[in-house]
């Protein structure tokens, strides 16, 4: 893949995102579409982009609104663009924005497009609440009824319990297991202690706080002015006052007795959006852009959801490295999505284990040896937050910017996703 294909190498030219805010807080009155449109308008300005140059758009969203099921199209209909830009919304759960970016990559690499905006958005403050199936059926039937009497007869069958709304849960449809239960199970199987999880979560908050204070995280955020006139310029989940003691006081959520996964060592439900500008290397140069980074390789994987649900990255990472033609030693910076501290630590454990590599990959050597100073250097989803559809865009922007700052040649992204899936991508700078 990459350089050999028709469209040449694919450049990440620019990216930005909204602040990430806990669901039900600062951004609660906005829809995912509005969040995505804001990130994209700001991207246009920051990149000084002529909207007429954009060929396509791909956005990720996991819980779409039935009122605007193709979010990407609503974004591509922004007045900054011609109304003729095709756009697709993608769902690969928490790796949705990553997949939007790889779709963009593929279309550019194939020579089908030169300039694409990809990203993702989620408003977990604005999830669809459904009527019960019975009530919905009655409403449809009543709508079709020809006479008032017939209509009333149908509605007379309504019972109070039919009116109880159905809220979608973050659970595996195939197993009924929630994300948190999966993380809890993984902590037990892999022997990840409560203390290690809490320490990892604390590290996430501390690094995110430092990244915010020194301006590195703030640089990727497009401040939002709410209809009320209030300004939201920062991620609001990052805690300056976290301590191990406070975290230790929290009760486990998913297994009250033997559990270790708590609200503090998990990523919170979050609202936010991200947008990334991708171009073919030639187009970027011709238009006078200096790319932040280039996409070197990517890979996806899936495991049996009934097994260790969030172990996908351990399979995707070696694949992506192999496709990139590099080894772990070449990687100078890593952005790992933090769904749960237990999930991150389980994956790290597997990637660093020779035994695991032999059993699951048929390799004689461990995949990785982590340098903790190069991992999630501005914290991760536990502190910053995790709007499902948008996180992949944030990881890409954060990594590309930091590779630039540090002069790192190769960087790695890994993401676990619902359905047992994993995602990994290698970026390169020159």
């Amino acid at each position, binding site marked *: 893949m990459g350089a050999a294909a028709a469209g040449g190498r694919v450049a990440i030219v620019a990216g930005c995102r909204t602040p990430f805010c806990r669901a039900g807080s600062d951004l609660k009155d906005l829809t995912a579409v509005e969040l995505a449109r804001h990130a994209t*308008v*700001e991207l246009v300005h920051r990149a000084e982009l002529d909207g007429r140059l954009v060929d396509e758009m791909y956005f990720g969203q996991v819980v779409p609104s039935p009122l605007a099921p193709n979010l990407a199209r609503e974004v591509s209909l922004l*007045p900054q663009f011609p109304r003729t830009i095709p756009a697709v919304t993608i769902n690969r759960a928490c790796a949705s924005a990553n997949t939007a970016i790889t779709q963009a990559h593929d279309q550019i690499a194939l020579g089908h497009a030169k300039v694409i905006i990809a990203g993702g958005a989620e408003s977990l403050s604005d999830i669809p609440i459904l009527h019960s199936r019975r009530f919905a059926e009655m409403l449809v039937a009543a709508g079709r009824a020809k006479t008032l009497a017939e209509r009333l007869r149908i509605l007379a069958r309504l019972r109070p319990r039919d009116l109880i709304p159905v809220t979608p849960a973050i659970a595996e449809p195939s197993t009924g297991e929630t994300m948190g239960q999966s993380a809890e199970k993984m902590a037990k199987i892999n022997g990840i202690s409560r203390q290690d999880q809490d320490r990892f979560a604390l590290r996430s908050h501390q690094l995110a706080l430092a990244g915010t204070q020194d301006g590195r995280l703030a640089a990727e955020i497009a401040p939002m*002015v709410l209809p009320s006139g*209030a300004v939201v310029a920062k991620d609001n989940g990052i805690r300056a006052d976290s301590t191990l003691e406070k975290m230790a006081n929290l009760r486990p959520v998913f297994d009250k007795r033997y559990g270790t996964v708590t609200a503090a060592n998990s990523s919170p439900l979050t609202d936010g959006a991200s947008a990334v500008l991708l171009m073919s290397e030639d187009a970027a140069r011709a238009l006078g852009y200096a790319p932040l980074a280039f996409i070197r390789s990517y890979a996806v994987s899936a495991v049996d959801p009934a097994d260790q649900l969030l172990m996908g990255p351990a399979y995707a990472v070696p694949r992506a490295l192999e496709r990139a033609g590099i080894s772990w030693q070449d990687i100078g910076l890593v952005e790992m999505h933090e769904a749960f501290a237990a999930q991150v630590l389980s994956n790290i454990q597997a990637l660093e284990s020779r035994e695991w590599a032999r059993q699951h990959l048929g390799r004689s050597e461990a995949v990785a040896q982590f340098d903790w100073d190069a991992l999630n250097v501005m914290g991760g989803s536990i502190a910053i937050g995790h709007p499902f559809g948008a996180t992949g865009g944030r990881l890409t922007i954060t990594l590309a910017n930091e590779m630039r700052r540090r002069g790192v040649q190769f960087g790695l992204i890994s993401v676990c996703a619902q359905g047992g899936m994993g995602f990994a991508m290698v970026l390169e700078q020159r």
Partner: protein
Amino acid sequence: MGAFRCAVSDGIARVVLDLPGEPVNKITRSVREELDQLLDRLGGDPGVRAVILSSGKPDTFIAGADIEEFVALRSREEAHELVRAGQRLLNRLPALGKPIVAAIHGACLGGGLETALACTYRIATDHPKTQIGLPEVQLGIIPAAGGCQRLPRLIGVRAALDIILAGRTLPAHRAYRAGIVDELVHPAILDRVAGEAAARLAAGWHPKRSRGGLAGLFMDRTPLGRAVVFRLAARRLLRQTRGHYPAPLAALRAVRHGMRHGVEAGLELEARLFADLAVGEVSRNLVSIFFATTALKKDPGVEGQAPPPRPVSNLAVVGAGFMGAAIGGVAVAQAEVDVRLRDTDLSRVARGLATAQGILAERLARRRITKYDHRRLAALLSGGTGWEGFRRADLVIEAVFEDLEVKHHVFQEIEARVRDDCVIASNTSTIPIARIAEVTRHPERVLGMHFFSPVDRMPLLEVIVTDRTAAWVTVTAVAFGRRMGKTVIVVKDQPGFWVNRILAPYLNEAGRLLEEGVPMEVLDAAMVRFGFPVGPITLLDEVGLDVAEKSSHVLHQAFGDRLAPMAGLRRMVEDGRLGRKSGRGFYRYEGGKRQGPDAAVYRIVGATRARALPDDLQDRMVFALLNEAVRALDDGVVRSARDGDIGAVFGIGYPAFRGGPLRYLDTLGAARAVERLAMLERRHGARFGPAPGLLRLAEAGGRFHAPHPR
């Protein structure tokens, strides 16, 4: 035939009006003559059972009567004969004995609508270009081809008066709802639906029309109800026009007379009233303003061969204060361009964006735009504290604090970021543009765009050019100002530009009178009587005393004692009285509402107690303005008397029925104006010394404008 095409098939005559050599259809003498003959033919042709009248122009049905023709009228008698002939012609339509369907796409105004009203059935396209109304009173005349008779009979007296008295134009869907048109269709099927309607009507079908609800039945259909409606309307009109605009009252009389004494009597009065108005001064002045505005819409803003304006699709505004934000909001709402607001801190940006969004929200609330328009337009507004988006900008408007050093700094910052083909404009009202441009590398792309507050309501824009401003820059700013919905005049870079220059002596004089002990409400009332929408003291409160003080100071320095401001103004500002925005000025305000005059003001400005009201107080204020207008015109501040009058009417609300200050001087006569000024000079001092230009005109018996045709 020239203007009409006519083809008959299946018993239906399709008559298409397509006036040769004109972009729009209008009712000219030749159109009337041709229609007369055509009606003879159609009436006598047994093969024709019904008629469809439509337009061959892309975006107009019939735009109205030929204004040139009406302007050329020389006497009452001539005017009377003209409209009587028009009435006789339109009376032939319902008398034809065959149904006529008006198939309306595009503007259907004035005489155009009166023609459609004389038809049997009206179908309009649901298209933004289809605008339907009777704007006559805006030109100081009344609908006199039966409009005052047929419209109230079709849609009821109240709805008809709403349209006729205000000279209103409705979009097609509103006209449909009002009952003016019978059907509303997509343009693609207009011809077909018109054909079907014509066939039905020919077969004896009678369209059913709603006669309004129970209340409507009483108010519109009974003499008693109508009497109430007429009395209320008359009272409202007197309040609104203060007797300065005779046309709406005349229209009301024509409608009332017709409803009481029948159509023929109504038509006769319509014609008589029209004839009076058409040759009257007010109508002539309003028409001259109309022509000037129309001409300005086509004026590129530079003399000689004008380069094409550069397209502006991205605007950046530096300074998200009230002015900058409002400019951004109007640019989005009117010109639909991408707007980037920049200010130094995020909370100022946020307030600016809220102000700009407020302009859109108001349009949504007034249903001038749909919620879908609103969503699209709102997304055009963004802002930040950095310079992101400035390389995309085709035009940057600076609206920061009025301080030369600050502006110098900002212009250098802007120039470092924008493309070479970007126009940079300052919204300053007090600083010479040339001084601002001094620090730039490319002063040729710098000019002033002086908007007036509130930007979304004030119709004027002064584009200020320096000696170095390039022609392409001027035309680009003028064209963009027009897209923002403004009437644009190009003004020379001199202190006060045009509007503030002529306004200053007027306000100064009001200040002097105040110091002499004339109560502020007396001053305001005097100028409202003259025809201004508000008086000078109220205007000061609205503009802001700090702003007025700064501006008057600059003019005082530039032009000396002639433009010396009232001494008390500075003390008012020092006292924290900035006018309405600060909650206190000359008047008192409570919760945004104006209360009475503030008695404390007289002490602050050091007013002496007046023994009696001066008998020349209106003259003093008016002539201060008129005299300065002549000086500024002679200084070449505006390019023509036309631009000067437009600037005064749209910039400070100089009474339109007087045609503008220079037109008003023409009406008075230069010699008489000189006499009045000389008298004021003797009484009140050198500042009233007649302007040299006025003296020259008086001597030569000249005028500023060509005379109205008489």
